[in-house]
């Protein structure tokens, strides 16, 4: 009986669904996290009777035929890249991107990582780094004598030096956008890598057409909505139970057959 394996595919799909939902809930307070969504597709169909074939007994033409589906499959775990809410942090090194774009990070491997998590800091050399200590790209170094730092909406980084009135520009933050941001590969630590699915990065200064702007002293929260996730969790749990019920029913049917002598 196919029902057993069909229901098993349904349970498997709902397990994936619960995994994705729990990952979202676990990252509810992760800066710049984008929630994920499991997408499902029906599997292949087996044509038992082709439409238009004649039914043997009466010679009548079957209008529709019989197609048996063989279950469900997880087709993608997509990322919803909508803007997360923005919160005040009062840390001058925190930046949030309002709109499209990612900060570029120089990874130890030599690759460029992309992130929406703008909780930046200054390391011992005065370079602006992420909370993991990776350098912002292009790199910006804050002089030791600086008393204050200002980052404008279009990413210009200025410092005020001791004893000087005029602020001095020390760098420019550039952000990268992608044709298909959900196609980026997440590598953990709030970082993403370019893939063929995401397309090549297009870099420019914040505030250019199609690019977001920088907000100093703010952080972007995750775009996970707790209520939505919990209700999805309940739906997934019920769907899992229903598939389990199919297995029980199919088992009872098989049992009644095997008990025949």
């Amino acid at each position, binding site marked *: *009986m*196919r*029902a057993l394996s*069909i*229901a098993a595919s*349904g349970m498997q*799909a709902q397990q994936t*669904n619960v995994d994705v939902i729990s990952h979202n809930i676990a990252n509810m307070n992760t800066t710049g996290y984008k929630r994920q969504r499991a*997408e*499902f*597709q*029906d*599997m*292949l*169909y087996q044509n*038992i009777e082709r*439409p238009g074939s004649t*039914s043997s*007994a*009466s010679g009548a033409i079957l209008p*529709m*035929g*019989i*197609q*048996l*589906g*063989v*279950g*469900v499959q997880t*087709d*993608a775990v*997509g990322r*919803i890249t*909508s803007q997360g809410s923005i919160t005040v942090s009062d840390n001058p090194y925190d930046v949030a991107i309002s709109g*499209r774009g990612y900060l570029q990070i120089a990874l130890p491997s030599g690759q460029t990582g992309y992130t929406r998590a703008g909780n930046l800091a200054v390391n011992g050399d005065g370079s602006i780094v992420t909370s993991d200590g990776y350098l912002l790209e292009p790199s910006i170094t804050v002089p030791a004598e600086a008393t204050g730092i200002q980052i404008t909406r279009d990413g210009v980084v200025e410092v005020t030096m001791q004893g000087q009135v005029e602020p001095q520009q020390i760098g420019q933050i550039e952000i990268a956008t992608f*044709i*298909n941001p*959900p*196609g980026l590969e997440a590598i953990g630590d709030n970082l993403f890598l370019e893939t*063929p*699915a*995401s*397309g*090549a990065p*297009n870099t420019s200064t914040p505030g250019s057409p*199609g690019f977001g702007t920088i907000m100093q002293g703010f952080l972007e929260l995750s775009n996970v909505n707790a209520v939505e996730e919990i209700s999805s969790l309940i*739906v997934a749990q*019920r*769907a899992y139970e*229903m*598939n389990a*019920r*199919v297995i029980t*029913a*199919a088992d*009872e*049917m098989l049992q*009644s*057959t095997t008990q*025949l002598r």
Partner: protein
Amino acid sequence: MAMDNALMLGLQTQRVLQRRMDIAANNLANVATTGFKADGIWLQEADSTNAHAEEAPTNIRFVRDMGLVRNMQQGPIAMTGNPLDVAIEGEGFFMVQGPNGQTLYTRDGAFSLAGDGRLVTSDGYPVLSGGGAPIVLDPQGETPSIGRDGAIRVAGVEAGRIGVASFAAPAALQKVGDNLWDAEGQRAGEFEGVVVQGALEGSNVRPVVELTRLIEISRAYQSAAKIVSNTDDLRQRAIQQLGR
């Protein structure tokens, strides 16, 4: 020996019930599948030659599964907040270019942009415009807005229109898996529905109906099994009695 007819009836009923069970299982497995349409089975009495005609009643009718009944009702539309998700309210299917270049149809509007700016399904198949050409958007442009007629506008300029095909008998389309349907030669007509941006159509499987059906099938199967076993008992007794 009229018992053979009873045996055949019982077995045929079990066979049909197994199929019904498989279909109910597939419906329930796809309770969370985007744009899924539930299947049912169309049962009919069928004239049949008796399993053993000698001295048997001549009006025996078997049950036969003649085909599928597809429930084409609208699935629930849920907002997703993803600008490239689209749902169809009303009849119709999105047109998609299949792996062999043929046009396939889907109610699953979880679209995204490929690296070259083409609008594609989650499997990477290009979404087609009404004219049958792939839709290409400016990759660096603003987030597109999609109108209720399927027209895609980027910064106010129309960049393409998502093709939606309607069919006179949508239930007769064949499912080919991966949320895709084959028109099987049926001609597509004018679209009369509405496209909703930022939303997806859920599965139209009604869990309560399917679960009730599940119980019903399971019980019917058991009584059919009983017919088979009773018939067998009867025959065994007859043989024993007569052979005495």
